[in-house]
């Protein structure tokens, strides 16, 4: 079924009888997430043929990339509410999907960028952009693609 934008806008944002928030508990959010993950009509942004490759969520968080002797690499970062408690989350880098250079705004000391960016598939299915900053050699989590 097709609908125009104006028709969608006419539709009430919250149907009568529904209370906010729609998914107040972790359980209810997990249910809808599992539903979306298994939905056949939903594709990963990075996999779309006409996709522009932009991240779905952009951030610039310090990260650590752990490289083992066996060649495996892991993304290690603090995340979620556990950040305050110092909990770390580690995800294995399954594959480097793409890599590129970003060099820009060199004339502005605050905005200057010089980095090598890797788009990687992590164990668990997430696709994220990791940047190796130059010349500091620090890693940044640039964003989550999908």
């Amino acid at each position, binding site marked *: 079924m097709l609908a125009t934008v104006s028709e969608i806008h006419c539709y009430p944002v919250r149907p009568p009888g529904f209370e906010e928030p729609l998914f107040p508990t972790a359980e209810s959010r997990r249910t809808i997430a599992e539903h979306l993950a298994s939905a056949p009509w939903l594709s990963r942004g990075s996999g779309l043929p006409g996709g*522009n*490759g932009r991240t779905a969520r952009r951030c610039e968080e310090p990260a650590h990339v752990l490289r083992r002797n066996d060649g495996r690499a892991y993304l290690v970062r603090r995340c979620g509410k556990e950040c305050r408690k110092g909990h770390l989350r580690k995800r294995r880098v399954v594959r480097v999907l793409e*890599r590129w*250079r970003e*060099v820009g705004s*060199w*004339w502005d000391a605050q905005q200057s*960028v010089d980095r090598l960016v890797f788009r990687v598939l992590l164990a668990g299915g997430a696709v994220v952009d990791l940047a190796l900053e130059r010349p500091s050699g620090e890693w940044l989590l640039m964003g989550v693609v999908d």
Partner: protein
Amino acid sequence: MTGQGFAHLHVRSGFSYGFGVAAPAELATAAAELGMEALALTDRDGLYGIPRFFEAAAGVGVSPVVGAEISVAEPGNPGGHLVLLADGMAGYRSLCRIITRYRCGSEDRRSPLCPLPVLLEHPEGLVCLTGAVQFGYVPRLALSGREGTADRALRELREAFGRDLYVELTDDRTAGSRRRMGRVAELARRHGLPVLATNEVAYLRPEEHKLHDVLVAASNLRALPGPGYRTTDQLYLKSPEQVERLFRDRPEAMSNAAEVAERCAGAVDLTGEVHVPSVRLRGGETARGKLARLALRGARARYGHVEGRVRARLLRELGCIEELGFAPYFLIAREAAEIAREKGVPVTGRGSAANSLVSYCLGLTRPEPFSNRLLFERFMHEFRSDAPDIDLDLCSVRRDEVRDELARRYEGYGVAVAATAQTMSLRGAVRIAARALGHTPSEIDDLSRHVPTRFRDRGRTYNPLSSGAWEEALAEPAMRGHLLQDTEEHALLLEISGRLAGRHLQAGTHNGGLVFGNESHHLSELAPVEPTAMPGLLRVQYDKDDLEYVGMPKLDLLGLRMHTALYEAGVLASRRLGRKVDPYDPPPEDRETYALIRTGNNAGMFQLESPGQMHLSRRLEPRRFSDLVAQISLFRPGPVRGDLVTPYVLRRQGREQYSVPLPELGPVLRSTYGVLIFQEQVLEIACVVAGFSLAEGDQIRRAMTRERGPGAMKALREEFVSRAVARGVPRGVAREVFSWTEGFAAYGFSAAHAASFAELAYASAYMRTHFPAEYLAAVLNSQPMGFYSPRAILNEARRIGLSILPPDVHLSGEGFTAEDSEAGAALRVGLKYARGLSRKALSSILAERSKAPFSSTLDLYGRTEVGRGALENLVKGGFLDALSPTRDAGGRAALLAEVSILPKKPRAPSRRSQDELPLPHPARRTRNRRVDVVELRGPGFLRLSAERRETMEWESLSLNVFRHPLSAYRGALRGLGVTPSREILELPHGTRARAAGLLESLQRPPTKSGRPVYFLLIEDEAGLFQATIFEGVYRRDGHVLHQRGAFLLDGKVEQDERRGFSFLVERVRDLSEGLETAGRVPEPRATPSSGAFLRAKRRGRRAG
């Protein structure tokens, strides 16, 4: 080895103006170092860099591929570029045709766009690449959701180029670049087209991406980031291995690049053929026949009858010209001279063409070849493969008339002027970089002021590619206290500008260098042609050296201000005397003229007016024309550095004896007292000592001049010595003579060129001697010209006894006029010296005053086009004194008050129209901004003091009508112990003295020792005075010279028997500072200048 056979086929150099960074030679050298056997140069919308790319590639063993990046636009499409590569001469000609067609047809000449059909019409001999991914014409269509249009474009391109169409793949390693490349590759697969790998090179090394970004932004008059900014540093000349790694998954793209490179490399050969222009001939007539007929006719007119040596030489020259096929070239040059004569435009020849009797007989040159010992072989001979060069000097104001008429006659073959390749000076680079870094215009002015303007200055080089460029510049006294001394604050600006200096900026136009097509090839098939800023004037994309390289003879129609001045002086003198005075036909060997030259007071004389020439005039004491020829040749960098002047002068004065190593050299060197001055003498020496023919002698001269390698010179020396020995010359003497000529050849001067200039020098000296008022008026009306500012010329006129009449709106002409006054001949200041007066306003004054005189400032304001600002300047200049209540200069305050309450006139609709612009101010050297106008409008309109009026005149006219600027300070200067310059000249050796004067110029000519020595030319009441400043003093006090315009000089007099007078400066001070309470001297503003190291300001001004 990986990347086997790969060559970059999409490479932009600095000739992609405002985009590319590296010079073609840098690219070729780097390609050779990276192991590439071939390299393409594909500059944007042009082939500007191709000849020098060929030259450089040949030097490093890289095969050049000729190509261009064509900016394509289609209505409704985003546009983009295609790359065309020539696989032979047919392809080169197609490329030239395509570029000419769309560049001449584009609305905006600075952003030309090629309609696709134009490109599809000329596919012969061309390989087409679809353009870099994302920005190429086809990829941009495909990636912007216009797949259908992309498909159609590919079909059309394939129809035109067939198997020579390749889909270009590039990976700039930005986000998504692999995906985009994949989509373009998929497009190629769908169409069954081959893919080809490139790296769309824009700079040589990754770190140069900053220069590229700056050039793009600045050329679009934007701060960074510029339009289409790309966050990449990958557009550099990568090694084949690096490219191979990028295209590891697409080996066919690499192999196709290698295949196309192999096919196109070296396929275009631009050398070996001279494209002599075709001349218009009547039916059945040949160029050779016409040239012989005209030459014989000219010879009869000049020599009476043609026989003996005249006939023999004419036949010899005509035979050589015919053999080399240059008869049409001579005929076109003659046609240009004839057009000039028909139009009454003064014309003379210059350069080595005067060595030719044919040129003389055709009326192209004036010096008589036999009496001046001019040798045809110095100009051309059978062994020379390059084209001869004929240069004609014309009145600079009317040169374009002649050029345009000649171009109109030959437009069927194609006519255009040569280009120039302009590069950035360090100062220019600061302006470019500062603009890109977002500085405001006033900040840019402050940052660039006093930065050395030239990358190379009189032998001193500011090397843009070394990190020391700025170290050297910042140490200059001119930059003391400069903003850029804060190297931390301006680190980025210093870095960028230091690396930009010396790089290509834009194409310029050589307004007089004409090139022509011929019957075989229209000009647009020989080189791309494009429009210039001047409507209707076309230019080829090659500069003069490139044209020589590709074998296209150039006819130079040069504008010479001296012709303008001489012609006007003749008109003024004829008008006053009521009889014809022809400045181009002065009586020969006029004694009074030579007497004036010998005094050294030569201001205004062509080639004789510089301080050095004035000094030389006093030492050399010329008495005949040949002396002038020698004098002009002697004061050149080479002879000065080689110190040939002193022996010449001493021998001429009989104070030094000379001998020649061989008796055969006697006749050759007798006229120059044993000193080797002229290049022609090298030919004669080779002839009389070693038995070479004159043509062979010229080859030796050229070999010596062009700095051949030591091996070539050794072979030449052995040949010379062995042939001389065979003629009985002792081996040691032969070696000595060869070394002597070898040392000289690097800086010798052509006698023909010197004689051509001496003709004009004598004519100007004659007019200056016998018609000083008319001549100096004409010189003042032909500004900017010569060595001196109008202020100095006017003061010189005053010194030789001419009266200076005040400006008057009813009596002044457009320019200076010569009048008879009670005190004798006089000059009256012209209207165009009033600052800010437009041509239109000036014409309206002349027209209205002929109807009725002006009764008041209001009357003038209402009846003419004069604006309020210009009217104020007319009042300040004294043009309206007669309209003041007091009828004299004292009433200017009242007039200014009247002007201040006048309503402003509405602006003219088009400020861009040339007619609306004020005239360039002829006295563009001096300026004083320190006049407080408010004070003049006070109550009571007090009569102005003489000093105040003078200051106002200085501000408006940049001249001192009433008296010399320093006259008012005579007493104060005496109090400071200042000695007038004339008296200093007579002081004994070793005397300490103090001089004061206004800046004329500061130069740093080459010296024998190579140590920098500065010559400061100042002017005081007594005259012009040259002082010598050595390095130490310059380093300590030089900033005063750059920042002020009037100086106090403490120094010591040197009277050297051999070299004459010099004043060695020990201390330089600001004159106004020295005068303290006595007043502030109206001083000229110092500005860097191309001819001089520093000069009183010359720039024009516009009306406020």
